[in-house]
């Protein structure tokens, strides 16, 4: 298909999207994977009433926890400390990395094995540690695959979902010298065999956290591969990294959230492993790490927290259902977003982490179809928040009263004027009447090319008479 002339200036998001859309293999991989995930979720929630009640409960648990966030974090710290877990606070990713490096230096660590952690991706931990001569190996199979291929995760739950078995087989052949096979079980066995030894060689295990329980000082970690348990029990030191929003008040809160998380993410009634980490190895115990650390990272989360509406962003329990159901994500994949968190949740959280000006197109990368909000297990009104961020994008902040970092970076005097004219047109009945008159009478002059619209569609032509005119005539006659 020949490409028509285009607007020359295409922003980064759109140009990455364009590349992704042109990759037929990538599109097949995503469509197939997302279709299957949607089916699995639907099957896991076969009772719609139960699902909706559970979602409401999940929302309430998260909202309640966030409404007491500072208190709960203090309670968490004191209970973790009492349990022998060392708590560290980091406002920025640099500080978080510094904390990890200090521990590594004190322990003279050379090798780190990682369970899956999106916060460590935020920190870019692998590269920071590598710069200090510490090898950091991913042990989650998906993360391991993309680390081998020097890529970033394309999905928060299934980081290598953009690759199919053939692509993984060729990667293993190339990077590991393994014989080519498309048998998924064999591929996984290869990975497991290599990783198994690495768990024993590692000085430090790093993991994320799914829920941090304030009342008991417990870190809850769910996983399906056993690598999380290995990473947090075999090395002598375990460092957990997490965002400050992951705290919940009570142990009983974890039960419904776990059910929502595993069913929404992969359609599983429960994950294969649920780890509840409450303390380091005690005297007389035969395994477990000697030291356990928790790094609590802010990285822009308190900015979202400060706004009653945007705070709902922090309800997220990282299930990925919003991306699985997003027609935009399904077509362009995670890498198009160019940031750690892709898809609808990425579009509403990333602006807080990196500044709205760094990702001004993320809130626009949605038709606001509402599929994400409909499936969110904790009822985050993602479409409303996307819309709100669009508003912050084009609103210049009052001096000293910015709602968020990078606010107003998409403000354009021209676009702003266009919308003012639009308002004038639709609030002045006489003006709108004139507009209708000319649009219908001069319909033959409608251009056949209308910017991006006509790249994929024919140009719409106004009707010969507007509804206003037809209705007036009709209603006058029938009176």
């Amino acid at each position: 298909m020949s490409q028509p002339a285009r607007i020359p200036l295409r922003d980064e998001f759109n140009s990455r999207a364009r590349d992704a859309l042109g990759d037929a293999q990538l599109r097949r991989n995503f469509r197939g994977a997302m279709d299957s995930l949607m089916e699995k979720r639907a099957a896991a929630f076969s009772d719609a009433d139960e699902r909706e009640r559970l979602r409401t409960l999940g929302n309430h648990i998260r909202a309640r926890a966030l409404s007491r966030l500072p208190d709960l974090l203090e309670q968490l710290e004191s209970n973790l400390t009492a349990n022998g877990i060392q708590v560290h606070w980091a406002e920025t990713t640099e500080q978080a990395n510094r904390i990890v490096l200090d521990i590594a230096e004190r322990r003279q660590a050379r090798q780190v094995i990682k369970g899956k952690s999106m916060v460590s991706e935020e920190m870019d931990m692998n590269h920071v540690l590598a710069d200090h001569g510490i090898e950091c190996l991913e042990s989650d199979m998906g993360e391991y695959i993309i680390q081998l291929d020097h890529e970033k995760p394309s999905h928060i739950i299934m980081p290598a979902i953009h690759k199919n078995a053939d692509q993984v087989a060729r990667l293993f052949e190339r990077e590991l010298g393994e014989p080519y096979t498309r048998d998924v079980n064999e591929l996984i066995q290869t990975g497991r065999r290599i990783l198994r030894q690495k768990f024993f060689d590692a000085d430090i295990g790093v993991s994320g956290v799914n829920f941090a329980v304030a009342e008991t000082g417990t870190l809850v970690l769910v996983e399906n591969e056993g690598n999380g348990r290995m990473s947090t029990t075999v090395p002598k030191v375990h460092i957990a990294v997490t965002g400050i929003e992951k705290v919940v008040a009570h142990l009983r809160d974890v039960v419904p959230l776990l059910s929502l998380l595993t069913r929404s993410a992969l359609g599983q009634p429960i994950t294969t492993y649920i780890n509840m980490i409450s303390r380091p190895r005690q005297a007389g115990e035969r395994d477990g790490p000697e030291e356990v650390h928790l790094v609590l990272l802010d990285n822009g989360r308190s900015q979202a927290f400060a706004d009653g509406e945007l705070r709902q962003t922090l309800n997220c329990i990282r299930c990925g259902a919003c991306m699985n159901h997003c027609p935009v994500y399904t077509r362009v994949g995670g890498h198009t977003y160019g940031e750690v968190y892709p898809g609808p949740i990425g579009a509403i959280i990333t602006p807080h982490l990196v500044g709205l000006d760094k990702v001004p197109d993320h809130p626009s990368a949605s038709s606001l179809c509402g599929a994400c909000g409909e499936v969110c297990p904790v009822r985050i009104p993602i479409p409303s928040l996307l819309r709100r961020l669009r508003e912050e994008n084009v609103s210049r902040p009052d001096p000293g009263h910015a709602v968020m970092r990078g606010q107003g970076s998409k403000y354009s005097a021209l676009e702003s004027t266009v919308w003012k004219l639009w308002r004038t047109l639709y609030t002045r009945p006489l003006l709108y009447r004139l507009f209708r008159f000319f649009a219908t009478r001069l319909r033959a002059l409608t251009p056949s090319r209308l910017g991006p619209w006509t790249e994929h569609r024919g140009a719409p032509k106004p009707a010969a008479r507007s509804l206003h005119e037809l209705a007036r005539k009709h209603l006058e006659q029938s009176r």
Partner: protein
Amino acid sequence: MNAPRTFVPQATRTAEPDAAPRTYPEHKPERIYLFGTCVVDLFFPEAGMDAIRLLEREGIQVVFPQAQSCCGQPAYTSGYTDQAREVARAQLALFDQDWPVVVPSGSCAGMFRHHYQELFAGEPDTLARARAVAERTYELAEFLLHVCRVELHDQGPPTEVALHTSCSARREMHTHHHGRALLDQLSGVRRVDHDHESECCGFGGTFCVRMPDISGAMVADKTRSLRDSGATRVVSADAGCLMNINGALKKQRAPLQGQHLASFLWQRTGGQP
């Protein structure tokens, strides 16, 4: 960080506004307002006229305030909230009698029914008016089905149609149920499913020009599945989606075309086009 000490409910804006089923009036009203919408006004006026005829056939007098224009949705979803609010204010002023407001487009009905209350959250008087109007706003298919309780008598030859429902109509107004129920009353019409039926057609208001390639890919997929469904006609209750889908079908030189539900229902039941 200073957090409020009390529990703050998060229900200021909900993802699914119509979680509880709506109750409908027992009797048909004598009069209704029709809010035509800006897209119907200029691009699908016959759909608006067919809506009027369908309603009149039910013995209802239709009032069409001539000062109406647009619900404000394009500015609202683009983040120009202040401009959207002024356009919304101008519409609200037109529907002051206690008559139902019927809208032949689910997403515009959703603006009236859910989002005006967000726009005027800071203006108690206007908010009260917005709430009152929201309470009596109906999407056309919903109104025909649940308030008029229409009984449609199909007079057309056997045919197969695919129904496309706009996403906001589906999620904010449950229009897919209403559209299906109305089509199912037509004895000669077989409704055929199309692949990924509940997926967005890629219109999304200004989304289609801000993210043209993604929107183009979405409408390409949507029209492919509509063509593959075997339907001889596409029916939709939302003019925005129709403009997008018909535009793409036209570009593909496909014989298939989309028609507004109001026009389809009117023509199938003996009305003259």
